[in-house]
């Protein structure tokens, strides 16, 4: 059997170092890619959260509008839910209450699909 000389060990070391460097360069490029992907996911997640929080959720819409009507003491409001919409119809509403209602609705996180204000009628359609 041939004796292993220091020169053989040196060559083995060079070979191992080359392989390790190759592996290192691969992991480095992988890190760059995965960091980029993570940042993308994170920013997407933040955007998704913000988008979802821009408007009230389904149950919140109904609760909030009921609360506003209660606060303004509007008792003759007819609330109907149809599919992904919530219809609020108020016949005979005073001018001051109409203005207040308009003000409140427009300052809340509702998706206003449709509304019609005429004389003392108030019609509002909110997205759920």
């Amino acid at each position: 059997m041939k004796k292993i000389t220091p020169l053989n060990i040196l060559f083995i070391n060079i070979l191992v170092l080359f392989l390790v460097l190759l592996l290192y360069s691969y992991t480095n490029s992988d890190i760059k890619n995965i960091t980029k992907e993570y940042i993308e996911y994170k920013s997407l997640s933040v955007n998704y959260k913000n988008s979802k929080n821009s408007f009230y959720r389904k149950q919140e819409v109904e609760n909030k509008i009921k609360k506003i009507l209660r606060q303004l003491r509007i008792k003759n409001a007819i609330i109907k839910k149809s599919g992904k919409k919530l219809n609020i119809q108020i016949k005979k509403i005073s001018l001051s209450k109409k203005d207040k209602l308009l003000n409140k609705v427009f300052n809340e996180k509702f998706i206003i699909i449709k509304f019609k204000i005429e004389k003392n009628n108030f019609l509002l359609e909110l997205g759920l």
Partner: protein
Amino acid sequence: MELHQVQKIYFSQIEFLEYFKNENKLKIGEDILSLSKEIIVKIPNNLNVNTENIVDIDELKLSKEFISISSNSKYIDNKTSIIFSIILFIITTLFLTKTVVNYQTIDEYKKKIDYIQTAENNSLSKIQIKSIVKKYDKIYADQIKMRKLIAYLLNIQTKVNIKFQSIKYENKKLIIKMINNPKDTTLSSKIGSYIQKKYKNYKVKIVNNDLLVEVKI
């Protein structure tokens, strides 16, 4: 020696040729060899041989002097090889450690991405999320545009002597009818110039002395 007594003839290289000088004989094991006319001959055991001048190979002692034949390179000696090996080993270890750390970091990022994907994004794909975000952004932009316009018109209402007769918003179209009393001829151009800056499709006109504003959001 008669020819018929010769059993076998071998050809070989012999390093002990020097020992055959002075009619010496060489003893290797039980065999006795002699040199006759440049040919080494094995003397049969049954022949009586003079024991003088026999050199026994087994009794020869090796000299303490020796020449080492090295397979090393002429450019690099053993010591330098070892030093370089040590340096390379240290560098290799450092890079290997860094590589392991990199693998761990990659694993951590993968776990974080998985968490975001399952816990925060409700296992929705990237394309689905982008589509939802885009949809919400569009709705949000439209809502803001519509609300800003209404806020502006409500503000105008408090400053000048006009009253809303009706407000209608449907299919992203806002129609506002205002009672203009007393008639303010500059009002329509004032509202028009404001809307013009922010909205593309709009109409501001006076119908039966009332001011009609139609804006496509």
